[in-house]
């Protein structure tokens, strides 16, 4: 379960960054919120990149299937990227209500995505990728920068 555990803890770390930014917006501290939101979006986008450039590629090459679950996950990443952009706009224009509304959508969208990954895709990865290949993939993912 090393893939699932590694990736799940990244999901949770992003959730915490997300919650911190939301808290600052509620408190009206947009300077701090901007900083925290940037952290959240960077970490999330880096996580997506790890998946798209490493994990999914390995999964696709082993299963020979690039039209299956990974395609859906890539598509959902695009949806999340879209909302990240809108949230950044809301922070920039100091629009608290728009931010909190988008935050709600983002949270549901992202958590649905994460649930599917944690329960299906990562579980499949842990099942089909050989142990040494898993360790190598984890190492490669660690190196990925935005």
């Amino acid at each position, binding site marked *: 379960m090393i893939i699932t555990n590694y990736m799940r803890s990244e999901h949770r770390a992003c959730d*915490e960054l997300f*919650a911190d930014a*939301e808290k600052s917006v*509620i408190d009206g501290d947009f300077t701090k919120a901007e900083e925290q939101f940037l952290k959240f979006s960077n970490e999330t986008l880096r996580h997506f990149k790890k998946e798209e450039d490493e994990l999914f590629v390995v999964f696709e090459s082993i299963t020979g299937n690039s039209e299956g*679950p990974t395609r*859906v996950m890539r598509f959902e990443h695009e949806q999340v990227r879209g909302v990240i952009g809108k949230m950044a706009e809301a922070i920039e224009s100091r629009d608290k209500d728009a931010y909190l509304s988008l935050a*709600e959508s983002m949270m549901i969208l992202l958590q649905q995505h*994460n649930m599917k990954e944690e329960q299906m*895709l990562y579980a*499949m990865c842990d099942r089909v990728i050989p142990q040494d290949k898993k360790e190598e993939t984890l190492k490669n993912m660690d190196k990925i920068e935005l």
Partner: protein
Amino acid sequence: MFNQGGLSLEQAPPISVVLRFFITGGIFGVILSLFMLFNIDNSLIIVHLLGLGVMASFMLGAMFQMLPVIAGVVIKTPTKKALVVHILLSLGILLQISAFSTSSNPYLYLSSSIILGGGLLYASILMFKRLIEIKDHSSSSKGMLFAISSFIITIILGVVMLLTIGGYLDMPYLLLKLRDIHYSFAIFGWVTLLIIAISFQVIEMFFVTPKYPTIMTKYLILSLFSLLVIKSILIFSSIDTILIDITLSSLLIIYAGVTLHRLYRRRRPTADGSVWFWRFGMILLIISLSTFFIDNLRDITYISFIGFALSIIFAMVYKIVPFLVWFHLSNQGYMEAPMMHDIIHPKRVKIHFFIHLTLFIILIINSFLNFTTLNIVSNIFLTISFSWILYHIVIATRKYYYIQRSFTPIKW
């Protein structure tokens, strides 16, 4: 290899699948409150309007939506299946109510057992079959499997009882026992297990809370289901079930306490209506189970259990509906897709929470006082409560179709 995941872009069912059940749940809620308001004092009717008309409608709608996400289960041609279930369920409930209110017409019992039982069994067996195929079970998907199993048991017993009362089966001596088992599985199995299964995912992920203890996510639902099975055997053999009841209640009280503690330690700051509904629901669950063994407080046990289930249902509906409207419209490429807060504003949810809170406080107080005026007041609050949620679901639905009609989507 992929059939268990079966992820596809189309896996989110069309919005109509979910909304039709939610709107029906709201309508039955209003019908129920009108029955209460006009003092139609038939507890069989009230219980089934609430349990099937309101709760099962909302819960089936939510299941259609959540099975793909929480359990990775895809239901093929969901629109058609939901339509069939929806029609049979609505018609079946009306027939059942008529059967209970005339109580002498055997054909009403026969037709309601076939239509209502058929519709519900069709839906639950469909979900059961997909859930049992899952390879990598999470605590939530396993929990849903046990909840659905409890639902199937509840339905079968219900059908048997309808046929017995209608005179088609000859075992009136079993009726009381069957009734007790039927209610146990409905209340502690279907409703409670489903809520627990959902909470294991939703609480931690959406409110960013610490994890539930592993021992709880691993064994709680299994233990509760086993206790229900043992309880049924004891009921059947006419043996006292008090020990089982105490264990069952203690486990659930611990669960509610742990859930309240998770919510208290949540990292997400928003104290919106849904957090309040979850908290109040858990408090009511604790009240319900701690009064379970005191005979004079039976009314409080029932009232607070109903309040618990409705709290969680409302918490879910107020998140699901605006999300789905936003999600489907943006996915279809409508730039004009309204944001969640413009579909149902959080303030509206908070107002509903206060209506709901007041209602259950009055109900609990009045279970001691028994004032006629308070009774009328609480029935008015009940009517407002269900009208409130129905109104907001309908408004959200209209916004969805309005955008679809009035604008052109961008293809991408």
